[in-house]
């Protein structure tokens, strides 16, 4: 049954993967072909935009779509645990986000061919921002899993972006080093005074906590019509 749920979510959200993948590939190809700015700067620009745009595209109607299309009561009637419903949606989105960043990173490496940066550097930078995007999306799920419209999903997503931004700025300005590893933005440029290992642990903790909260809140949905 879970496989069938995954298949259903995959088909419903395939257009997002197609759209984000096509847009990323085309713009990466264009920027790396034009080469007005260095390859490293191109990589940062593309990855930075992807880090915000891709989760927004997935977040807009991954949960609220069922509400606005009035299919959620049908979904909840399927004889399967709600946490499986949640994870089917989440996993499809997560796989999509990872695939998009992976394809973009590989294309960057292919087009750059190591001409300005060491081989693997662009893929690594892109992967770090992809990880940040995944953590941000997971945090969105914790707030937006009960959203009833695109507007509330968008508000939740931007709330996550801005909230983590404020947290990160506060940690940087006030030099609260223990807090920096918990902000997804610390993955973008590993803060020099904070070991990468701590950032990894911090992100795993945030990711796990957000996933748990999101799953719990989705399971506890009561008012959906």
């Amino acid at each position, binding site marked *: 049954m879970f496989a069938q749920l995954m298949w259903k979510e995959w088909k419903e959200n395939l257009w997002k993967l197609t*759209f984000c993948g096509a847009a990323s590939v*085309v*713009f990466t190809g*264009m920027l790396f072909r034009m080469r*007005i700015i260095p390859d490293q*700067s191109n990589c940062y620009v593309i990855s930075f935009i992807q880090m915000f745009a891709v989760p927004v595209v997935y977040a807009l109607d991954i949960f609220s779509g069922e509400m606005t299309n009035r299919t959620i009561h049908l979904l909840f009637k399927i004889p399967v645990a709600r946490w499986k419903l949640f994870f089917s949606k989440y996993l499809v989105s997560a796989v999509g986000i990872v695939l998009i960043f992976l394809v973009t990173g590989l294309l960057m490496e292919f087009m750059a061919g190591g001409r300005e940066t060491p081989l693997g550097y662009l893929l690594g930078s892109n992967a770090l921002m992809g990880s940040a995007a995944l953590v941000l999306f997971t945090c969105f799920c914790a707030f937006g899993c009960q959203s009833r419209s*695109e*507007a509330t999903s968008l508000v939740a997503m931007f709330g996550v972006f801005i909230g983590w931004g*404020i947290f990160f700025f506060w940690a940087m300005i006030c030099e609260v080093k223990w807090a920096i590893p918990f902000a997804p933005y610390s993955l973008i440029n590993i803060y020099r005074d904070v070991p990468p290992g701590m950032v990894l642990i911090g992100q795993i903790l945030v990711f796990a906590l957000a996933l748990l909260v999101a799953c719990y809140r989705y399971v506890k949905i009561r008012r959906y019509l």
Partner: protein
Amino acid sequence: MRVATVVHQQVSQIKWHALACLALIMVLPLEEAVASLLDGGGFYVLAMVMPSIMLGPLLAGLIACANVQADLNDRRYIFWRSKPVGVKRFITLKYATGLIIALLIQACPIVFAMVTSAISDEKQRVAEQMRYYIMLPGLLSVMTYSICFACNVLVRKTARSWLIGMAVACLLLLLPFMLPLGYKDFVSDVLMWVSWFYLAVMLVGSVGAFVFAILAAQYDLHLKTNLKGLLWTGAALVFALMMFAGGQIANIKVLAERDISGRYATDFKRLGDDMFVPGHGFVDVDDNKITFEDTKNDWDVAAAFMLPTSSHLEEGYEVAAYPTYHWRGFYRLAGAVYTFVIHAYYVEEEEHDLKGKVRKIRIYEKLYLRCLKLGANSWDTVSELDLSDCIGDRTARQYVALGLIEGRLVAIVNRSCLVLDVAEPSKPKIIEKKIDVLKRIVMWRGSRPEQLAMPLIPLESLSREHCVKLSIDRNFRYFRYFSGDVFEPSIVDMHEGEISFYLVSEKEIVRYDVTRWDDEKVYCSRSAVRPFTILERMVGGEAYGGFVKNGQLYLRGESKLMVYDVRHARRIRKTGHFARMNSYLGDIEVLDNGNILVLVHDRQKRDVDSYHRAVYLLENPG
């Protein structure tokens, strides 16, 4: 329905959204103020005001959407039309109320900064920075608010309206960068008193959106959207914009590139038909690959270029050489390689200026034109000509230009000029020499007068066309950046009996055609103007000079090369643009097959020992 009632209702409808936006915009300033207080610096904010104000345009869009949705969403759409107030009045009051609230919210961080800074005696710094804070984000907020308002009236869905509104606002802000206006910038002409050209875009955009919102509400216009279609349309628009921008600023194909380094690899040197890079060798671009050869046509000039020259010092004098080492031309004459240089001998004296400060001045005593021949181990002086009578004002900077024209060596030294026969370089013969005949050059300060006249160089041993060309180059191109320029490249184009030249300012290219000349002056009239787009001006720095070759004008900026076709239908038509933002362009050479060699210097990787550079072979876009 009274105005106060409508306004009160609008304020009540969006009060929670306004409070949420206020909280968002004030978080960073409050954080900074608290952090500063805890550090002992006082409760004030300075650095976080600008970042929080930049959120203003986004939040203004949100308030606009919330404002419209309060009455015009699908469930209440019939209800609001039954209110005893006209559509136009209602929409206008709704628009104005929301806009004022949005601007008030945006003003809060500024007021907070001013108040807290006044209390903490930080007035001076705040006052200096406030003038930059208020204007631009405020205008942007008005624009985004208006556009999101109009989109929401049309689309009637909050999230999509906000996204569409923001996309339209970004498009409006980007378009002025890219429009290839064929005439002088409209905003510069009409709104000369405005320092920001975007004022027109923001004001006109806001007014237009407001008028459209009223019309949409009055005629019940509704645009049904779906998310997929919107995203694909948006992506297609961005793609089209990028293609358009790329066509303007990055359309020259790179055929090959090669990294080089070395202290002396600063430019290309011509030796007859061959070209070499000092320290690397002769450049070979067969099969569109860049390779370097140590020898070509039995000449090992690449290595020989670094050979020392014989000393030209004289006791009691300092010596300056023109052209300087990097600007010299190398000529193949009588089966050997020669270069020509003028040595100016001077003494330094001290003098007091009007303020009593001591400064050193040079007094030039002697001037010699020397011919150097490439020998086995050094450059040897083979002939010398005394040109001390060409010095003129002995305390003034020496202006020198020389090069080969029609097989003869032509030299311009201050206000004198001479032509020499150098068929036998060891025995140069003076064909013509005129002392103190050249008039002052006519300064050009970037304007575009209809008519121009400049002094003619009165050399009778050269053809009149070459005299005219030399006069134009002397007036506008020589001595502008370096003393000691050789004659090539030139800004003059001679084609089918017509002579024209091109002047480049930071804003445009202007073409002048030579209409006539007499014994003293050359007369020209303006025939075409090609302004730069904002994008062209921004990417790669301002254009500061160029040259014409084979009907193509090659313009260079700090980090860019632009190519124009100047003969087709007598217009100046851009054909190519090459830019590298992380580099600055060194030398540019156009090969006989039209392709272009560019030497660029990498800004980031340079250090004392390895000057990191690259040579690009570009396909000529013409």
